[in-house]
């Protein structure tokens, strides 16, 4: 998918965020994105940013944890739309290996066999040749291929298909230059969270 290639660098960040349970709380609270200043002060609108055009080169993302009053600033040049889509896909099952897709046997639908391909919702036609996954669930060749190259799991039972080692290894290497600034805000100063100019000056670096 295009979104995966658009934001590989930021996706590794989110993978890291997702691994830390407490950091996970940041994810729904993306406060705002802008070139050099934070334009949004309302932390309760975590979803509005998706509608905002984000074409600038350098962007800053502010993640706010409302439980601890903490926030994290991420600088880089991600395309936010791609980031959010990429991150949504990130945690799903990675694509199935080419070999495993090719290895799926073709089977013939029996004369009295009922059922349908759950991907296109077309009923089986007697004598039709379809693909059978290792979990024995059957799909049209074209239908299941389209899915397995995105997520290598059975649409019905989530049976996990083998994954290409290479693809998995690559993701871990995609560290790139970015600045993370951690800010712990006391309760009284939490009003300043909307003021971007204050943020970088009060940094105490925690995460590397």
């Amino acid at each position, binding site marked *: 998918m295009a979104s995966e290639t658009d934001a590989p660098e930021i996706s590794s960040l989110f993978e890291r965020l997702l691994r830390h349970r407490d950091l996970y709380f940041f994810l729904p609270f993306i406060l705002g994105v802008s070139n050099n200043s934070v334009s949004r002060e309302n932390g309760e609108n975590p979803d509005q940013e998706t509608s905002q055009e984000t074409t600038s080169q350098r962007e800053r993302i502010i993640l706010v944890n409302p439980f601890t009053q903490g926030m994290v600033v991420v600088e880089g040049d991600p395309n936010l739309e791609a980031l959010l889509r990429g991150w949504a896909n990130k945690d799903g099952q990675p694509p199935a290996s080419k070999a495993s897709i090719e290895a799926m046997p073709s089977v013939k639908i029996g004369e009295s066999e009922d059922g349908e391909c759950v991907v296109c919702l077309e009923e089986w036609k007697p004598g039709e040749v379809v693909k059978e996954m290792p979990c024995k669930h059957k799909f049209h060749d074209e239908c299941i291929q*389209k899915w397995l190259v995105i997520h290598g799991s059975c649409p019905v039972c*989530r049976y996990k298909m083998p994954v290409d080692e290479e693809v998995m290894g690559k993701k871990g290497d995609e560290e790139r230059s970015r600045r993370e600034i951690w800010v712990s805000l006391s309760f009284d100063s939490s009003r300043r969270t909307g003021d971007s100019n204050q943020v970088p000056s009060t940094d105490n670096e925690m995460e590397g």
Partner: protein
Amino acid sequence: MIDFARVQKELQECSREKDSSGIRVSPKSDNLARLTGIIPGPLGTPYEGGSFEIDITLPDGYPFEPPKMKFVTKVWHPNISSQSGAICLDILKDQWSPALTLKTALLSVQALLSAPEPDDPQDAVVAQQYLREYQTFVGTARYWTESFAKASSLGVEEKVQRLVEMGFPDGLVRSTLEAVGGDENLALEKLLSS
């Protein structure tokens, strides 16, 4: 490219089963990429008796990418933004499968109304209230259901009928209701001022 043949099949199935599930899906326009879903609030919850409208947008990759869903009806729930209606539900994100349909996805949203997950919140304020002051949460959720999910629970036909009974012509009533997004009071105001 959206698999429109599949979307058509889904809509047919939904209309066949709408009486048993209470869930309705209808297209907003001819292109089938924008739809509206209606789910009844589950019994025994603060959402009981409410009828919740959900805005559905199908991405180009549907059914290989999840449908985008958000609440149009305001709802007080830890996993639904009280501001934007955004829904925090795994099957609408990374746990989507093409074996799921608009109907099963809406059933999952309905199940989410029955079983909030305050530890994975979409709306932090609601989640905190749910965890710290559960009775207040129930009261607020019920009040929001009363205020926002009931007026719209009346079917369009009932609204049309009432407005026609007030003496407005059927066609004008329908076009006016459509223009104001189905809000009966706004439609009446508009009809009276025209």
